[in-house]
């Protein structure tokens, strides 16, 4: 099997039949994130300088921690990212995640996730490479059908 070499910048993009406000809510509200983001609860005030935490759905274990860098609802959110669920990624420096939300014609919104500053975090880069596709596919399905992905 071919494995993807770790990329210092990763870009993921998806078109969703929803408004920018709905996409923003799906990213920032725990009642949504538990249904598509590996069951995790998001916790943040989404103000610059505030902590960005992703907690395990069934406990208070912090799986990802970071800090909000920029926030412009419902268009853009930028925060740092450190995955704590694996001791190897937990010891790596913070990387950065930017969510860009752009309205398109016909009631469609383009969501782009840029995960960068991964140069010094190869384990994180490897870990999120498949993860973001799964998360964005689940987010799209949830917003368009009201149901999470099966399985």
């Amino acid at each position, binding site marked *: 099997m071919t494995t993807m070499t770790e990329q210092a910048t990763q870009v*993921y993009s998806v078109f969703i039949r929803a408004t920018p406000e709905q996409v923003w809510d799906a990213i920032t509200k725990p009642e949504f994130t538990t249904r598509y983001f590996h069951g995790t609860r998001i916790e943040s005030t989404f103000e610059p300088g505030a902590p960005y935490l992703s907690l395990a759905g069934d406990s208070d274990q912090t799986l990802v921690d970071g800090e909000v860098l920029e926030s412009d609802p419902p268009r853009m959110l930028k925060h740092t990212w450190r995955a704590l669920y694996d001791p190897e990624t937990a010891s790596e420096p913070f990387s950065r995640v930017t969510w860009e939300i752009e309205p398109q014609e016909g009631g469609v919104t383009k969501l782009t996730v840029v995960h960068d500053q991964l140069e010094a975090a190869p384990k994180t880069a490897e870990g999120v490479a498949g993860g973001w596709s799964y998360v964005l*596919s689940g987010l799209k399905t949830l917003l368009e059908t009201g149901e999470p992905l*099966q399985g």
Partner: protein
Amino acid sequence: MTCDLLVTYPVRVTTDDDRVFKALSDPTRRHLLDNLFERDGRTLTELVSRLEMTRFGVMKHLRILEEAGLVVTRREGRQKLHYLNPVPIRLIHDRWIDKYRERQVSALAYLKSELEETA
């Protein structure tokens, strides 16, 4: 009887999935994706240097990949970099492949129980 022609005779529209399947149907375009899979964030010049094809030809293929959402470009200083976006493939996987794989698995489960019962 409905008089809504759009409902009764749906107009054939190109869907996102159509664009992805069409983009993936060409070996040069799959080769371009493999190049980005190997190392992401390449310039057009870099991609041209890895193919025996004119700059114009590569641009044409990249445009089809971009329209399908399989390639996303970003400006980095003065350079335009091309990134592989695997999400459309994931969507096809989640909506199509999983569906048929499930049926295949249940068919195998049925075969197993049939064979074990008759054994």
